[in-house]
């Protein structure tokens, strides 16, 4: 399984996930890294959780589907997505594995001129994302909900996209660090804003990770006042200095 998350903020939507794909039976499981957040077709961002072949089948059909664009009414898009997923599930080769697949799909709805995101479940249900939404391994979803609960004083609707990225990253990495089985690896992220989509590359994730660390460090300073600075170290300093 996996963990996928969506958050709607003031000026966009963020989709995020872990990057671990787990295969095999219990006790003989193998994990490897895989991409779970990407742009399957122009204007749409997608994150998937569940069986990879089922997800791939859905994505391939979604890529090829005609007449779906951010200009389409969002309710029509929702119906089309359900139809595509139903088609995938009719495939006998994925029978038994298609019961636990979930998607988060986000786009900038042109008719409504606002960001929208849909959580699509294989059972035929779907939920529009209003603030936070999660999918994937039940224990992971539980931990992620708890992580968000610890930040309930932050209203995602009041955050800018950049601020929401940091909050989403903190939630994802805190959840990954709890070590839930089937969830792991680096955080992946993509954003939908009015000007377009962006899948955040790993090089850019580094700056975001540092921002979260900085945020946490500043929280500590807020509570404790100034914390120990690097110059206060007891380690003998053998550093160089320029001549006077």
């Amino acid at each position, binding site marked *: 399984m996996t963990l996928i998350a969506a958050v709607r903020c003031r000026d966009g939507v963020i989709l995020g996930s872990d990057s671990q794909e787990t295969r095999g039976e219990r006790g003989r499981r193998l994990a490897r890294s895989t991409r779970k957040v990407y742009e399957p077709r122009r204007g749409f961002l997608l994150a998937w959780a569940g069986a990879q072949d089922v997800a791939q089948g859905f994505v391939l059909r979604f890529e090829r589907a005609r007449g779906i664009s951010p200009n389409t009414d969002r309710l029509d898009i929702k119906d089309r997505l359900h139809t595509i997923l139903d088609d995938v599930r009719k495939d006998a080769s994925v029978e038994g594995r298609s019961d636990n697949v979930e998607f988060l799909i986000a786009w900038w709805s042109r008719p409504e001129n606002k960001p929208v995101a849909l959580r699509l479940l294989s059972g035929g249900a779907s939920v529009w994302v209003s603030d936070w939404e999660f999918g994937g391994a039940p224990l992971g979803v539980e931990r992620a909900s708890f992580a968000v609960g610890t930040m309930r004083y932050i209203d995602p609707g009041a955050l800018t996209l950049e601020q929401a990225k940091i909050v989403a990253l903190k939630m994802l990495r805190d959840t990954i660090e709890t070590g839930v089985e089937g969830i792991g690896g680096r955080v992946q992220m993509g954003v939908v804003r009015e000007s377009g989509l962006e899948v955040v590359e790993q090089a850019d994730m580094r*700056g975001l990770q540092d*921002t979260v660390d900085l*945020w946490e460090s*500043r929280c500590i*300073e807020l509570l404790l006042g*100034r914390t120990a600075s690097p110059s206060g170290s007891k380690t003998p300093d*053998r*550093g*160089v*200095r320029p001549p006077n």
Partner: protein
Amino acid sequence: MYFCIRPVRARGFHYVWGVASRGLRLRTRFGGRIMKQRDWLLLFAAYEGAPDGLDPIRFQKGLFLFAKCAHAPERSKYVFKPYDYGPMSPSIYRDLDRLVDEGLLERVSVPGKQWSRYKPSRVTFREGQKLLKQAEDEKLLEAARELFEIKKDVSRMGFNELLERVYADYPEFAVNSIFRRSA
């Protein structure tokens, strides 16, 4: 099989000698190769002030403040953009990684953080001495002294103080900061 080989244009001895000697003059004018951005980064790491190393934020802020110094040569300055935590240069991340790969810095993990501290070692200090000599040869000792003062400052300050100072002095680099200023 037929290979189309583009004929190499013959160059005269004087042309080749001219190019080679120009490069040589450029390299030796300052007593070796010219100090580059990453040399200043390494010197910053080698200076006393933080024997256990510094986090990437302090490297970013330190080298940013150095880029604003009067004596810092243009070619030694990293290019910064306003980012989530103020001025940031992706090249600093890249150069820190390279310095670690080359054994000139040690990466030390920090409990509870994703970032690592970059710690100087004996090799760092030895290289630092060489770079100081080079700075002297290039008549850049004043810039080296400014960098030293910056290292002392950023190593002494907490994150809140450091960020507030940078945001106050260079508000144009705080425009994309996700942290709202307290005043």
